[in-house]
């Protein structure tokens, strides 16, 4: 259908344009290519979207307990206006990526409330305190986000609908240089995301 194609083209143009527009660096420097060359959402732009609803599908969990990243690209999905999990930030021990038993109730709550969010997905942001080197913390923050993702997948959330991103030590919640600040910075945050319009 022609109208369908037209809408698709507009959506594609809008998705690519902001990246093509950010061209103010060294004169020769090109905009970053890569994902932007492909339609958002891995070619299923305007098709019906999955919900996070799948229950008790734990087939994605490997023997080693690891859950591979899904094929669905959620990186360009945008945070929803409503963020119901702001108060559910999970905190970690120093230099650890294991989930404390005192924190699991937050994850259980997120898993059950997530099932009511039709068509939306979850982005887990992993963060560290400053007491580690930069790239070490980028990996540690990633490991934290992935540990939270594993828990939620075991609790029944579709692994394709959970994205992770590590900010390492780049985005501290508290800029202080003491344990009170650090304990708030070692965290995983949960952002509800939806497809770009």
């Amino acid at each position, binding site marked *: 259908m022609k109208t369908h194609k037209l809408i698709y083209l507009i959506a594609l143009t809008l998705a690519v344009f902001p990246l093509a527009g950010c061209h103010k660096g060294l004169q020769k420097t090109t905009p970053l290519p890569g994902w932007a060359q492909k339609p958002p959402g891995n070619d299923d732009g305007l098709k019906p979207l999955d919900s996070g609803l799948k229950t008790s599908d734990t087939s994605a969990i490997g023997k*080693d307990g690891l859950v591979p990243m899904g094929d669905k690209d959620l990186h360009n999905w945008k945070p929803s206006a409503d963020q119901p999990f702001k108060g559910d930030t999970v905190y970690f021990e120093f230099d650890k990526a294991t989930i404390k038993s005192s924190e699991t109730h937050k994850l259980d709550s997120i898993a059950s409330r997530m099932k009511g969010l039709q068509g939306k997905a979850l982005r887990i942001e992993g963060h560290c305190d400053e007491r580690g080197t930069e790239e*070490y913390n980028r990996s540690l923050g990633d490991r934290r986000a992935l540990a939270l993702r594993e828990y939620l997948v075991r609790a029944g959330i579709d692994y394709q609908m959970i994205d992770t991103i590590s900010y390492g030590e780049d985005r501290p919640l508290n800029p202080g240089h003491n344990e009170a600040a650090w304990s708030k910075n070692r965290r995983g945050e949960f952002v509800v995301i939806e497809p770009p319009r």
Partner: protein
Amino acid sequence: MKYLLTSVLTACGIFSLTSIAISADPTLRIERNYDDLGFLKPIPVSISGFSGEVDSVLKNDLIFMGVQNVAPTEARYFITGSNGERVEGRVTEKVTKTELMAKAYAGGSKRVQAHALADDIAKLLTQLPGIAQTKVAFKVETGPSVGEIYIADYDGHNPQAVTRDNSLVAAPSWSSRGVMYYASYKLGKPEVFSHELGSGARRALVHGPGSTMSPAVSPDGQKIAFIWNKGGSPNLYVCQSDGSSVQQLSKSRDAESSPCWSRDSQTVCFVSRERGPANLFTISANGTGRRHLSTVGVGNATEPAWSPDGKWIAFTAQRSGGFDICIVKAQGGPVMVLTEGEDPSWAPNSRAIIFCKGPDHRKVLSLLDAPTRHVKDIARISESNSQPSWAP
């Protein structure tokens, strides 16, 4: 007998610098002594005749190349010269008065000419590669949660932005083929890009789900080691410089980070939490022979950097309250703690190290002469500078 020898050096890609050998007698044997670790002991020279910027550039350059300015009575060689119309310099052996080198420089700025003279003196006296005209890349924090990759002369002068993405950026690694690799969050997640410095062309290193981080290009420029989480944990991968032939080298459940390469581009050293705290490991680029690298005396070793001569691995050790720059022999063993700081990167002379220090978001880059532990901070750009990578 006088003869003319002209060599053209390209400095900054703009000025062409010419050096003219006025006279030279290279037949004299130069005495070189080595310390217990095998580093060349600083060669004592007495520098005179220069002024202002040329004088300070020359002296600073030579310190990081194993040549030390001392009182005339302590010196073995005299370095004399001038910087009027052009920079001129002579190296004379003190006792025999033999002139070993005499050169004049034309083109470029006086600063560039001083760097060229320093390189010529260091190469003559130490037989190590000159580093005074080399460059470094690093991360500049330009605001809260945003940064850019910059390049500058090794001493921090002539900084130039490589990226203008206004996004989080990390871990530049400089290839011998004029390509920079780094991770950018510009498209919504950390992703490794290659960036040809000549043409400005950029492309994602690999395509696939998840985040790619911490790229390290091999000394031959052909392979990239990096961290990828597509299997559900941040693991070590290697691919060709064009992103092809991706191979997973580790399948640990624990976070891995910060790969670097051996001199022959055959072995990767990286960080794993396999043993609890952070430890260094080596593995061959084909995935065989994984081995723990012992760092006796320090805990929490991260950010390894293999020296270009293959002998040393510099790394960051974490202690309560801070970080130290350390070195250990490439096969592992007792550790030498050199100075406070983090994220070391070796100069091509396998002697000088650039690193960063200071609290988060207020970091400054600093130069270190490993054998003498001489340290000098370089000018900071914007809020915070970190993750230096010395150009090969």
